[in-house]
Every structure is written in structure tokens, then in C-alpha cells.
């Protein structure tokens, strides 16, 4: 009695009860597919975030002013930012980051706007994709020129066209907007929202020199956030520390620990850890449904053993040993679980891509996930199949034969 014969026999009996077998598999299918979908999306999400981070720069350090113990004199001036770039060898780019809500209008259309202010280095630090025109330059930043760069989806929504370089836009607080000239269009970072129906609620995204933003919104020329970019990965740590020291020297506030330097990579690690825990947790919940599926397999195998008591008696009468019967039923439960596992894998991958499309994540199906899914479903089949198979194998032949 070899494996192939066992498998053939098991397939025949599974096929004889098609509907029932399928319903039994359903539990496994749901379990495996949800685990696969969750894990693939989780890993895909991690990859996406890692990619994003690497794009904006693994070499970047964010320096924040700790608002809890900062005095107004501690805030970073635009001149501080220039000094960071000039004085610290390791720092290649530096920009203040100002973010403020305002309004943007084209004369015919007014929308809420998210306004970002930075130096010309914002272009490199954000690693923007320039589609049309150019980014604002150093001189425009120094002089606070009325220029702006908007993103592609803002261009589409405000102007109903793509290349809007040279157009003017009124930007500012609701009651005091000022005209700025659009010099460039960058690729939208929020493209996944762009197609949504209620795009009225999506704010316009405007990038301008920080000096211009301060002028338009009547703010002081200071910032609570600076992003610097080191010349290499190795120097990121030192760049952050040196920047802190320089700022503390210029503001004379050493010892109060006002400036917090955050390495982007460290932040990425934290995010990935959290995401990993979350993925594991959701996968564990999904795995519980797999256990429920396994119980379903056990249940149906017990029914099957009872139904086929006479068959077992006949097989024993003509010479089947305990092991033969055991393997026969175990093969059946493993095959049910494995087919369930394979279908679950297919549905899980399909589901991951389907959901990923909606959520804007490209899922990552690793070979490890696939192998674990298949092994795990077989394990479920064995684990939940053993009890029914033993029950079948240990039936007394004469009683089994007498069973009606």
C-alpha cells in the first residue's frame, strides 16, 4: 500500500462527498486566505513605508524644538538653518519645515490649502518628482519671492489642467490672500486620494519658500522643525549631534535639551516594529479561524468514520491492519486541509492584491509565507485528523461489520 494509492483513495472519497468536502475546506480556506492576505499586506505595507523613508532619505535627521520646555528665544531661525549647512561638514542639505493651513484660490475656485515652507533644499530633502517647470531656488528663498510649487493633483483640481507653470494663485489666510506665481508642478504624494469622489475635502498642497510663507501668514521667521540631510549614512548620527550642539551654542541653551534630533531610520525601525506587531496580532486572530476550520475537519472526519463503519469492517475483514485504516483516514483529512490551504493561498493572494489596490499598498507575498501556509494547513489536517483516524483504526472488526 503506497502513498499514491492512498492519495487516490482519499481523493475518490472526498470527491464522492463533493459538497460536504468543500464546506469543510471552507473553514481552512478562510483561515489560510485571511492569514496570507494580512501577512502579505503587512509586509507590503512595511516595504512601502521603508521605500518612502528611503526615498525621503535614510540620511535625513529631523530636528524638532521640544515645545514643552522651549522659550520663544529657543525657536530656530532661518539664519540658524543656513549656519547648519555652512558650518557642519557632514550636512549637505538643510531646510526649515513650516506647515500651515490656509486657503488657495484661482479667482473662480477657492480651496482649503496645506502650505509647506522650506528652503530650496526642500526639493532634495522631499525628493520631489518635478513634472513641470522648476522648484523655487535659493535666491527666491533668500528674498521671500512670491513663487510656489504645487502638486499634480492640486493642479488638476484647481485648474483642471496639468502644466500650470506661470499661472498665479492666491494663497494665505482666508481674509488676506496674496498672489504667488506657480513655477513648478511636482508629482502628488497623495495620488491614492486623487480619484476619490469627495475631492472637495482634499486640501490643495502648496510648497513655497519658508520666507514667503512667513510673510504671507505674518509669522516670525522661525521654525520648530528643521530637516537636515547628511552626506552619507555613516555620518547621519554625527550630523544630528553636531547640529544640536551648534543650535545650542547659538541659542545659549545647552543643558535644557530643547532640540530633539530624530534619525529617520530609527523612526522607520519603530514604525516597522509597531506594524510588525500589528500584523502578527491580526494574523494570530486570523489563525484562530484556522483552528476553527481544523475543528470542522475533525467533525466531518468523525461523521465520515461513523458513516463508513461498515466499510472499515469490510476492509479489516479482508486484511487491513490498524495502520492501513489510520493512514487512509489521515490522508483524507490532510488532503482536505491541503486543498483548503492551496485554495486559501490563491484567495489570500488575490485578496491581498485586491485590498492592496484599494488601500494603495502593493502586497508582498514571500515564499516563506506560502510554505508556512501549506505546511500549517497540512499540520492542521494531521492534528485534527488523528483522533478520527485512530477511532476508525481501533474499531472492532466484527462490530464494524455488523454496523447498519
Amino acid at each position, binding site marked *: *500500500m503506497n502513498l499514491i*494509492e492512498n492519495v487516490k483513495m482519499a481523493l*475518490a*472519497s472526498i470527491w*464522492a462527498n463533493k459538497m460536504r468536502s468543500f464546506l469543510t475546506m471552507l473553514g481552512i480556506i478562510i483561515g489560510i486566505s485571511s492569514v496570507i492576505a494580512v501577512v502579505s499586506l503587512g509586509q507590503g505595507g512595511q516595504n512601502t513605508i521603508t521605500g518612502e523613508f528611503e526615498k525621503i532619505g535614510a540620511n535625513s535627521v529631523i530636528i524638532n524644538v521640544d515645545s514643552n520646555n522651549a522659550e520663544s528665544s529657543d525657536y530656530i531661525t532661518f539664519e540658524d538653518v543656513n549656519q547648519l549647512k555652512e558650518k557642519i561638514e557632514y550636512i549637505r542639505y538643510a531646510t526649515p519645515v513650516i506647515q500651515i493651513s490656509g486657503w488657495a484660490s484661482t479667482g473662480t475656485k477657492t480651496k482649503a490649502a496645506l502650505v509647506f515652507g522650506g528652503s530650496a533644499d526642500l526639493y532634495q530633502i522631499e525628493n520631489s518628482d518635478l513634472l513641470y517647470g522648476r522648484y523655487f531656488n535659493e535666491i527666491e528663498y533668500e528674498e521671500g519671492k512670491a513663487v510656489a510649487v504645487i502638486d499634480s493633483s492640486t493642479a488638476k483640481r484647481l485648474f483642471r489642467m496639468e502644466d500650470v507653470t506661470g499661472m498665479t494663485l492666491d494663497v494665505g489666510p482666508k481674509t488676506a490672500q496674496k498672489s504667488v506665481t506657480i513655477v513648478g508642478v511636482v508629482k502628488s504624494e497623495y495620488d491614492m486620494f486623487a480619484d476619490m469622489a469627495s475631492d472637495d475635502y482634499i486640501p490643495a498642497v502648496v510648497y513655497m519658500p519658508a520666507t514667503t510663507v512667513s510673510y504671507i501668514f505674518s509669522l516670525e521667521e522661525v521654525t520648530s522643525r528643521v530637516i537636515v540631510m547628511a552626506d552619507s549614512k555613516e555620518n547621519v548620527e554625527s550630523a544630528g549631534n553636531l547640529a544640536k550642539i551648534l543650535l545650542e551654542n547659538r541659542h545659549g541653551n545647552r543643558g535644557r535639551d530643547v532640540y530633539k534630533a530624530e534619525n529617520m531610520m530609527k523612526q522607520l525601525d519603530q514604525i516597522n516594529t509597531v506594524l510588525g506587531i500589528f500584523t502578527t496580532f491580526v494574523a494570530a486572530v486570523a489563525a484562530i479561524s484556522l483552528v476553527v476550520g481544523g475543528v470542522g475537519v475533525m467533525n466531518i472526519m468523525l461523521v465520515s468514520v461513523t458513516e463508513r463503519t*461498515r*466499510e472499515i*469492517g*469490510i*476492509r*479489516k*475483514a*479482508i*486484511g*487491513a*491492519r*490498524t*495502520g*492501513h485504516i489510520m493512514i487512509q483516514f489521515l490522508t483524507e483529512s490532510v488532503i482536505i486541509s491541503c486543498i483548503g490551504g492551496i485554495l486559501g493561498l490563491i484567495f489570500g493572494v488575490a485578496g491581498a492584491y485586491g485590498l492592496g489596490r484599494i488601500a494603495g499598498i502593493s502586497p508582498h507575498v514571500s515564499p516563506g509565507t506560502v510554505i508556512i501556509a501549506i505546511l500549517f494547513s497540512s499540520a492542521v489536517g494531521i492534528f485534527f485528523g488523528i483522533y478520527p483516524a485512530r477511532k476508525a483504526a481501533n474499531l472492532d*472488526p*466484527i462490530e464494524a*461489520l455488523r454496523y447498519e
Partner: protein
Amino acid sequence: MIRIENVTKVYKTGTIRLTALNDISLHIGPGEFVAVMGPSGCGKSTLLNILGCLDRMSSGHYILNGQDVSTLGGNELARIRNKEIGFIFQSFNLLPRMTVLENVELPMVYAGVSARERRERALEALSKVDLSERIRHRPTEISGGQKQRVAIARAIVNNPSIILADEPTGNLDTKATEEIMKIIQKLNNEGATILMVTHEPDVARFSKRIIRMRDGCIIDDRPVQSRTIL
């Protein structure tokens, strides 16, 4: 070849003890054709099941081909049922989902015979019972007489020492009964040892020796006088 000594079988159901076989001794030699007769409930099937290693005796000894099988474990008994015993049941007991051919092959599957040899030997056994058509049909698609012929083919396919038949014609009409008895007689003529339970005197007359039982005891054991030969 088959010898049982002082075999007793007691069924205990709750507080009730029922002695189905009471101190039975019996010897059956090679080439014999024995019919076991007696009223319903006298212990015929119990005796046959013990001889077939399907059931265990309460006390006594059973020597099959010189080996004491009373002490063997479940898997060793299974091996003996597979190699030494051929069963024929009143209700055929074919597996409904398998074809005729597969049913006949099954004992050889458990004996570990290669697929190719199985096919050859199954076809040979089927030709011995005059069944060469409809062998790829399922048991539900053939007549009672044909089913019993499949069961006989299955019983002889591993060349057992003895064929045990429990009322093999109990579910068959006269014509099919004759067909089956003809095949069994032919097998006996070719050397097979046969023990057959029946309560029909007409059927018993096909055998060479008749054992009569009552209340778990053998009350009569004699050769057949006017044997019917087909």
C-alpha cells in the same frame, strides 16, 4: 489444518451472560467442504467469525496451519485474515464506491502486491467465477448473483487456506444459488477448503460434510449421503 479445542464464547451484555459457543472442538482437514447447519441463534456465525479470526474466543485454543492463533494481536490477526482466510458474506459486503475489479484487488493492496500483479491476479480470479464482463462497473450496477461471484473472487484472490462463507446464498434466488454453489464446488474440486454456514438443507447437500449445531454445541457431524453435484 484447522483445529479448535474446547472453544467457548460468552457474550456479556450488562448483567446478562450468553453462551454462544459451549466447549466446541472441531477439526477440518485440507480439501474438505463442510456445511454448518442449525436453527437461528445457535452460534453458527459466531463459530465462523472465530475461525475467521474476526472475533475472539472466551476460552479454548485455535490452531491454524499448526500455529496457535488464540494468542495473537490485532495486526497479526489482520495478516492472517488477509493471507489465510477468504470471507464470503450473505450481504456480499463489497465496497460500493469501488469498481468490481478494484474490490477484487483490495485484499492484495493490503498484502502489498504490486499494482500490475494485482490486476493480473484479480482478472484471473474473476475468470474463475465466470465474471469477465462488467468488471469496471460498481457493485450497485450488477445483480445479486454477480455480486456474490465478485465476493468469491475477492475471497480466493490471495489463495487462502480456507474459505469461510456465512449463508452465501441467503440473499439469492434459486438460479443464482445454483450458479454460486457450482462455483464453490468447482473451487473445492480444485483443492480449496470450504466451510459454509447455511440453514437450507438443499444448499447443505452441495457439501461433503454436515455439522449440526444447537445452543452453542455441535450435536451431529457426518458426511453427506446423497450429495448434489452440479
